[in-house]
């Protein structure tokens, strides 16, 4: 997804729903979707607004412009459970309060990543931030679906290793 790069006036999106700067659409009760409709997820326990904020937070912690939203959603979907939801909602509420203190709007409405990152940095020692960050290390990077984006090929045993498939094919040295 792309971050909005211009200050936004009242847009059509805001009229249609409570849109977000970062692009996740809160489609209605219990449902969040990506702006490009490439992903959509039904909410189990969290509010759609909070979940959309969490997805944006995940992207801002580990921003990879070539990773689509769907993988960030997968990475944090585990917080949308009856066991995790209360603590996560509380964390997101604190994030929005901090965003309002520092930047004058709730987290999702901050347009620039660098401003959102500033909000996150101010909370970097909080247990909530650390929990989300630490969870992403495996939640995001251990998704096999993102590996090709980094060029990583995963296991090779089933193809006989790289002995005949380029373990020494470097040509630019």
């Amino acid at each position, binding site marked *: 997804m792309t971050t909005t790069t211009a200050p936004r006036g009242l847009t059509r999106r805001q009229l249609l729903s409570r849109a977000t700067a970062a692009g996740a659409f809160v489609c209605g009760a219990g449902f969040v979707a990506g702006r490009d409709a490439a992903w959509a997820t039904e909410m189990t326990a969290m509010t759609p607004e909070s979940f959309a904020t969490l997805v944006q937070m995940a992207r801002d912690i580990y921003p990879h412009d070539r990773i689509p939203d769907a993988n960030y959603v997968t990475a944090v979907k585990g917080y949308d459970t009856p066991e995790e939801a209360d603590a996560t909602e509380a964390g997101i509420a604190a994030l929005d309060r901090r965003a309002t203190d520092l930047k004058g709007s709730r987290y999702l409405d901050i347009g620039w990543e660098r401003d959102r990152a500033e909000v996150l940095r101010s909370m970097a020692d909080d247990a909530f931030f650390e929990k989300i960050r630490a969870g992403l290390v495996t939640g995001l*990077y*251990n998704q096999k679906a993102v590996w090709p984006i980094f060029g990583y090929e*995963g296991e090779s*045993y089933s193809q006989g*290793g790289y*002995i005949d498939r*380029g373990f*020494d094919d*470097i040509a630019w040295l």
Partner: protein
Amino acid sequence: MPAPFDLSDDSVVVIIGTGAGGGVLANELAQKGIGVVALEAGGRYLPEDYVNDEWESFGQLAWLDPRTTSGDWRVAKDFSGLPAWIVKAVGGTTTHWAGASLRFQPHEWKAATTYGALEGANLLDWPIDDKELAPWYARAEEKMKVTRTGGRAGLPGSNNYKVFETGAKALGYEEVHTGRMAINSDWYDDRPPCQQTGFCFQGCKWGAKWSTAYTDIPAGEATGNLEVREKAHVLRIEHGPDGKANGVVYAAEDGTEHKQMARIVCVAGNSIESPRLLLNSASSIYPEGMANSSGQVGRNYMRHLTGSVYGIFDKPVKMWRGTTMAGVVQDEARHDPSRGFVGGFELETLSLGLPFMAAFLDPGAWGREFTTALDSYENMAGMWIVGEDMPQESNRVTLSDTKDQFGMPVANVHYSDHQNDRAMRDYAYKVGMAMYDAVGATRTLPTPPYPSTHNLGTNRMSANPQDGVVNKWGQTHDIANLFVSDGSQFTTGAAENPTLTIVALAIRQADHIAGAMSKNEV
């Protein structure tokens, strides 16, 4: 054919742990006709079971029972419950290891004499030397089919190695090659040559890399003299009124406790678990733990100073293709105090897969600085620094307040860098970065040490019983029939990866134990 020994059979040698030290000792004794019961906390996994997926493999093989940490090392902050990366499985950490197999340099057996007194360092000479170990090294190399020894060829160079070699040669280094590796470069012992699959750290699915899990252990079992009891977690060693060890108490998989009687007990649980076990075996005769009259059990914990350097280039490297450790620069391994530190270090290529790279590149880091580095994962080359760290009395394994699933206190691992360690690491970072710069790196990343893979020194060998825990045979100074058979015997760490030396010492110890048994000395 595994030999079933009775719990009450007090003629057997009991070995605790089946890794590099324990697995080799078990086979060597069994080959000599000695009855051995090897107790292993982990389960048995063979090449067909290994998973070429970093986290899944970690879950399958790693020691995940609780441990605690303290000290100023960054691992205590970033991985407070994971001081070390050690395997809990038949074969121990030889399932995970990369296979780099280098001999100590002669002067490294005599660190105290060579380096002189260093404030804060508890340096000591080993009670053995290069000449004494040479024949045992040769036998270890033959057993493990180490490349570039015994007339065996080296492995071919991978992409990661070629970048590394080009940088090293540009800086004028001369001792640069694809390593001496316990990885087959041809068919040996019915095991195939390396297929360059990567994932050496996850267990070699081809069996090309030496691991006791599928070499020494089945060979020992085939004699009919070795019984390996897996998922048998030893809780303590016991002794009779004479103070001699008489057996060990272990928890079986179902949680029931059993006592296996023994003529001799050999501890080979790795340098964290072995001292823990001795400390947990305290009794009225041995209030400070077994074999601990010197107070040295658990002290002088070493982990090699380590660190990594990753270089990012404007073109692909694909470092994950091929052997994980695919080459070495040895020029800096010498002792040359003009560099600002004593001892030396090896540089070895290293590659992590994307999931581990994300976890270990800069633990705790986030944001664009971090993610842009990962974005260039395909264009990265990597190397690891292995240098001699200083033994310090205060770096030690002690019993923690935390208890494990059996109610036994777990190990706390305390480590702080010595000034010499910091000076060497800083120097090594500069050298490593310069190597990649010389090949045109657009960015270099001096990466902090990972949880310890080389764990050494917590039951060290000493000529004088006051200075250490075991004598030159690995026999404890205090208790004649209690031996230490793993990396915890190391008096000092040297610059080289430790396993070849652990294996050489285990082969030598087997000879000694067999001799002592036949002469009825133990």
